[in-house]
């Protein structure tokens, strides 16, 4: 262990500014998570321009805090009104809302909080142990192996991020195409600009991210408001009555009694989090389903704290591990990891296995922030969860125009370039169309980020092999293995429809509000 770097990281993290941004991130994240329709990706997209103005630890504190808070925050509205703040918390509705109707809303929210923090903290420890080892392995890779690793990641993303392989891969292809607009990464000659001078620098990340993740979602919600097709769930019960001090809380013994379910959540969430493309929703439903099958006597799904423990530990346990492919290989495994990777790049640090050698203090700082974020999540969740439950009732008619304004500011403020705003709006329409046809956005953003690396590695491999394509592509057993794995994955996914089966995990459950 590099103790100097560790001390430097500690001195970077334990400053007023970094802690403040971490607290703001968690507080903002829990709030965004609690508001139905806003996800961690939307939140990170909106604060990404702000993160430029912070130093590296402040930026990481804000983004990681927001991510952790948002994944827990989704459970608040799932438990309070049977409307999950994000799909990640949909599995929590089954038990959480039933408990609320039985007058045990306070107990349900506390179980969600404690299991979220437990799952998150345990998986963070796994990340700290695993990521450096994998990075050491990745350092042995040459350009050929890195190229195939990226292809494998794209194949995984396409295969697992939605139920339709062709749409997932189409989204990845859009990202690859958009990533080639602007200067060629090797010779810096402008290309693919459609004759527009303002495209010579390429598509800037901020308008892309805000357009695809934030503004497109607001367009969709705005349309729902205009059409009034959305079933307005009026909270018929007063939240004060549900979560009052006199209502039943959670005892330490009850929390400990859910250790098996939390263990399932931690195991499943960590594994799912490391794999590119799956994400917290799948982890939550898988953990919930496994716990339900293994412990039928616990009546999971019928208003039990054990179902909440499994689902919430499962979704929060993906938060840290989703950063493993980013840190170990420089390949983001999820949209949120891509956004955190983008924030690092905007700070001048390219995520890659070399980061462990070149910027050990940043890696240590990130690990400390990951662990520290859990304490703030616990404290803020414990103190303000019931306030956030009220936030979930904020009318969309106020929220949508406000976030539209924030999106315009975000796109404009990054470079004060009006073209960025226009580009953001154009990309928002594309994102809106993608949502309508059921095309996942995550492969687009991830491939957009790795497109230049993909090109650089292929060209470097060809340079090394003096133009021999077969040697450049299949010059080592690892490269052949990775290429074979990517091809096999695509064939198996196509034949077995794995993405479809995984996305049906959630759909096959009973109607959550039905009883």
């Amino acid at each position: 262990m590099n103790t100097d770097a560790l001390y430097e990281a500690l001195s970077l993290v334990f400053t007023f500014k970094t802690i403040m941004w971490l607290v703001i991130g968690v507080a903002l994240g829990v709030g965004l998570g609690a508001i139905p329709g806003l996800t961690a990706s939307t939140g990170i997209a909106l604060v990404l321009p702000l993160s430029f103005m912070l130093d590296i630890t402040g930026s990481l504190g804000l983004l990681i805090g927001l991510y952790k808070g948002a994944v827990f925050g989704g459970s608040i509205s799932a438990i309070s009104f049977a409307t999950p703040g994000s799909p990640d918390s949909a599995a929590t509705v089954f038990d959480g809302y039933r408990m609320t109707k039985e007058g045990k809303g306070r107990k349900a929210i506390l179980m969600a909080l404690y299991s979220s923090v437990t799952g998150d903290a345990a998986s963070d420890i796994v990340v700290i142990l695993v990521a450096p080892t994998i990075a050491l392995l990745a350092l042995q890779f040459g350009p050929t192996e890195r190229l195939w690793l990226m292809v494998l990641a794209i194949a995984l993303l396409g295969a697992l991020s939605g139920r339709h392989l062709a749409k997932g891969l189409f989204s990845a292809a859009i990202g690859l195409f958009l990533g080639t607009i602007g200067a060629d990464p090797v010779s810096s000659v402008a290309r693919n600009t459609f004759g527009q001078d303002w495209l010579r620098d390429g598509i800037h990340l901020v308008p892309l991210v805000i357009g695809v993740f934030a503004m497109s979602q607001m367009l969709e919600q705005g349309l729902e408001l205009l059409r009034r097709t959305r079933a307005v769930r009026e909270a018929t019960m007063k939240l004060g009555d549900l979560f009052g001090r006199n209502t039943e809380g959670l005892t330490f013994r009850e929390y400990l009694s859910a250790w098996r379910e939390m263990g399932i959540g931690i195991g499943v969430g960590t594994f799912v989090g490391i794999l590119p493309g799956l994400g917290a929703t799948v982890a939550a439903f898988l953990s919930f389903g496994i716990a339900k099958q293994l412990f039928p006597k616990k009546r999971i799904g019928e208003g039990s704290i054990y179902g909440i423990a499994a689902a919430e530990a499962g979704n929060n346990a993906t938060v840290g591990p989703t950063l493993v492919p980013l840190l170990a290989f420089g390949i983001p495994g999820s949209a949120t990891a891509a956004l955190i990777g983008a924030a690092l790049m905007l700070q001048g640090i390219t995520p890659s296995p070399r980061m462990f050698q070149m910027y050990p203090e940043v890696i240590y700082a990130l690990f400390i922030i990951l662990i520290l974020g859990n304490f703030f999540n616990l404290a803020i969740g414990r103190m303000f969860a019931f306030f956030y439950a009220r936030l979930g009732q904020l009318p969309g008619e106020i929220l949508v125009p406000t976030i539209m304004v924030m999106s315009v500011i975000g796109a404009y403020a990054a470079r004060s370039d009006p073209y960025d705003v226009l580009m953001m709006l154009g990309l928002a329409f594309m994102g809106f169309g993608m949502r309508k046809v059921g095309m996942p956005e995550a492969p687009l953003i991830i491939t957009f980020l790795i497109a230049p690396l993909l090109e650089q590695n292929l060209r470097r491999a060809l340079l090394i092999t003096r133009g021999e394509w077969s040697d450049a592509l299949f010059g080592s057993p690892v490269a052949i293995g990775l290429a074979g794995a990517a091809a096999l994955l695509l064939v198996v996914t196509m034949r077995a429809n794995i993405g479809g089966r995984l996305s049906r995990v959630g759909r096959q459950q009973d109607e959550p509000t039905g009883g």
Partner: protein
Amino acid sequence: MTDFRRSNRFVGLVLLIGACLLFAYIWLSPWAHREMRDGFTLGFFPLIGAGAMVLCAAVMLFDPLRREVPDGLAGAEWSDAVLALAMLAGIAAYAVAMQAVGFLEATPIFTILYMLWMGFRPVRSAVLLGVLIPIGTFALFTILGVSLPLGPLSSLL
């Protein structure tokens, strides 16, 4: 819209036409065939991107999910796209106005109009919130050091 026009096959067909046009546009562009020092042509990777789009869209026409209607298109109407474009046009107009006259001058008009358009009532509350939200946002971003376009009202704060 008929079921065919909502199906994955129709989506694939539209995407295929668009991707083919994009591929052809790049192929016919002179820059695409310009060779770099390492032997690569400038258009190699853009063509891979467009080519992958063509391939995936073609697969959508024939794969097992071709007859399925995506959830988002089940109740969709063409007017949804028109409304979304109208919303975007309004936001673009707001962005232009914000730059021309200042954030504090343009934003309240935008927020009030959009809140009312989305159905927020009563009007008095929309006006009050529509003024307070931009002031709060302006104060927040000013504290954070983000420079927003300034107009005559900015000096009052």
